[in-house]
């Protein structure tokens, strides 16, 4: 692999600038650096979840208490959050989700493909605004724009970070 990408660092800066105080996550390799940054920052509460839908409810509660947050997950986790997103939609809770994609570009694991291929359509079916990004240089500005739309526009927004950008996992890795 090439040297570690620096987009997670600029994304973290964008999250902090957007006022994010709670970062909830189910780990994914593509989010490893961002999670590390959140855990290392005293001004941000890093909240590891047992399942992604906890994060949707958690960030609804955070907003009730006056705090913005972000939810990090892999595309497989999108399947877990759908019903809980009904709460965000009904209450119009701002929700910013950063989703690292599996089941697409160069995927080696067939079990990842069904949910990966259904991720965007599933989110859109329940009313989430989806912004996809496939090159590393555009991740931070996409997150910045998504955060503004979430927290100021009062909407559910997901940024899908493409597997081509992340580098597809390989059997040999």
């Amino acid at each position, binding site marked *: 692999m090439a040297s570690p990408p620096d987009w997670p660092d600029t994304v973290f800066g964008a999250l902090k600038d957007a006022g994010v105080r*709670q970062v909830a996550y189910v780990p994914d390799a593509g989010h490893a650096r961002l999670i590390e940054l959140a855990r290392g920052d005293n001004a941000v509460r890093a*909240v590891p979840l047992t399942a992604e839908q906890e994060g949707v409810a958690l960030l609804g509660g955070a907003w009730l*208490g006056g705090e913005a947050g972000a939810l990090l997950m892999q595309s497989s986790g999108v399947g877990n959050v759908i019903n809980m997103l009904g709460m965000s939609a009904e209450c119009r809770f701002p929700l910013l989700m950063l989703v690292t994609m599996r089941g697409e570009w160069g995927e080696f694991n067939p079990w990842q493909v069904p949910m990966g291929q259904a991720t965007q359509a599933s989110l859109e079916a329940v009313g989430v605004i989806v912004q996809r990004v496939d090159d590393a240089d555009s991740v931070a500005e996409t997150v910045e724009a998504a955060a503004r739309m979430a927290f100021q526009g009062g909407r559910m927004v997901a940024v899908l970070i493409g597997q081509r950008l992340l580098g597809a996992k390989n059997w040999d890795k």
Partner: protein
Amino acid sequence: MGDQPEITLDRRAVVARILKGRADTLVVTGLGAPSWDTAAAGDRADNFYLWGGMGGAAATGLGLALAQPGRRVLVITGDGEMLMGVGTLATIAVQRPANLAICVIDNQRYGETGMQETHTAFGVDLAAMARGAGIEDAATVWDESALDTAAAALLGAPGPVFVAIKVTPAETPMVLPLRDGLALKHRFREKLLGKA
């Protein structure tokens, strides 16, 4: 089962008794009867009633508690709702919010769907699961004698606190609070944070 103590507590009386001493405690309720019980005890802007999002009440309380460390947050939910989000007990235990308490009004039934038994009717012990997750202050209340101690813990003991209170499955009159989620959010935030 068959060896569990006789259950006599009335859910509505239990919730009213706990909430009597709440002062400025923020309350989040799980969908169904816990929302009606809480509304029956007196509707307030600092009650946030879930009408959906099953399994999300405790996590909602956690996010609120982390955002408002200076305020007590009490989640009142049902056994079925807690079971659907039971992993959240582990998430709460890792965060250790000192201001968060979870109260499960446990009638051992899915009340909104025809009173089918939940897992707790077969002996599944939510307090033991909470303790196993790492919430040390976790208890089950079976009768009147432990109720005042439990209420005091829910409202004031260092959190996280977990209490399951066994209540009879008797159905109670529906007391329906505001159901529009956007309106519930606005009034809660306005009460807590002031006008936007």
